[in-house]
C-alpha cells in the first residue's frame, strides 16, 4: 500500500491537499526540491506529482534517480501559471530517440 505526494509551489500543494493528497512539499529552491525528492524516494511513496517548473530545475537529478523500476512514478503537471513546453519536448525527444523520426 502506498500513497501519493506532491512537490510544488504553495498554491498547488493547497489545491492537492483539498483534493485529498495530504503529503505535500512546498519548495522554492533547487536544493529544497532535491531534498524533498530524496525524502520521498526513501519513503514508500509510489506516485510523485511535481510541477513542471520545479521539475525543470532538477531535471538531471530526476533523470538520474528515475531508474527502470516501476515505482516511483514521477508525474509532471503544469502549475497555476499554465504549462511550460518542456514536458512535451521530453516526450518528443524520447520518441525521436526510439522511433528515429520526429512525429507530431
Amino acid at each position, binding site marked *: *500500500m*502506498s*500513497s*501519493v505526494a506532491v512537490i510544488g509551489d*504553495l*498554491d498547488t500543494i*493547497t*489545491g*492537492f*491537499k*483539498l*483534493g*485529498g*493528497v*495530504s503529503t505535500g512539499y512546498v519548495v522554492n529552491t533547487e536544493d529544497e526540491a532535491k531534498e524533498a525528492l530524496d525524502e520521498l524516494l526513501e519513503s514508500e511513496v*509510489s*506516485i510523485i*506529482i511535481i510541477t513542471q517548473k520545479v521539475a525543470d530545475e532538477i531535471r538531471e537529478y530526476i533523470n538520474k534517480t*528515475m531508474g*527502470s523500476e*516501476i*515505482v516511483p*512514478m*514521477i*508525474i509532471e*503537471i*503544469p502549475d*497555476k501559471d*499554465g*504549462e511550460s513546453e518542456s*514536458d512535451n519536448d521530453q*516526450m518528443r525527444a*524520447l*520518441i525521436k*530517440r*526510439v*522511433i528515429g523520426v520526429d512525429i507530431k
Partner: protein
Amino acid sequence: MAEEVLEGINPTRMELLALKKREKLAVKGHSLLKEKRDALIKEFFDILNKVKSARSDVEKILKEAYEALTLAQIQMGDLAVKKTALSVKESVDVDVTSRNIMGVPVPLCDTHFDSRTLVDRGYGFGDTSAQLDVAAKKFEEAVKMIIELGEIEKTIYLLAEEIEKTKRRVNALEHVMIPKIGNTIKVIDMRLQEMERENFVRLKMIRSTLEENEAKAEAKRAAKEAQA
C-alpha cells in the same frame, strides 16, 4: 570491418561445424529480436495515442481546478483556504502492481477513492464557501486523472527503454556478430580447402618419388640380371 573474424578459432572441421551452428542460432535470434522490436514499437504507438489525450485531459481539469481554487481564495482569503486544506482527510490510496507487455513489466495502478460526500472531506461548512467545495472536487478528479497519466507515461518510458535495448541487440547481431561469424566460416573453409590441396600435392609427390624409386630399383635389377 568486412573482413573481421572471430578470434581464437582454429581452422578445423569441428570448429567449422560449431560455427555453422552458431550462425544459425544468431540468425534465428536476430529474426526473433526483430519481431520483438516491431511488436514493442507497435505497442509503443498504441500507448502514445493514449498519452496525448490523457495529458490534455489532465491539463484541462487542472486548469479548471486552479481557477476554482483561485476563486475560493478570493472569496475566503488565502489563509483560510490553506487552513481548511490542512484539515482535509487523505483520500487517495494507490496499489501499484505490474503488468507484462512483451516481457516488459509496466505499472498498473489500482486506485481506491473513497467516493466522498461533502461531509467526508473533513472541514467545516461554517467558514468555507461553496466555491471551495467545487475546487476540492476538481482536485479530486485531477488526482485521479494524474495517476492514470502517470501510469501511461511510465509505461511509455519503460517501453522506450526496452525498445532501445532490443534495437541495440538487433543491430549488434545484424552488423557485427553475423558478418563476423560468416567471415570466420569463409576463412576456415578456405583454409581447409587449401589444406586439402596441399595434401593432394603431397600425396602426388610421394607417389612420384615412390614410382621413381621403384623404377630405379627395377633398372638396377634388370642390370644385375643382364650381368648375370
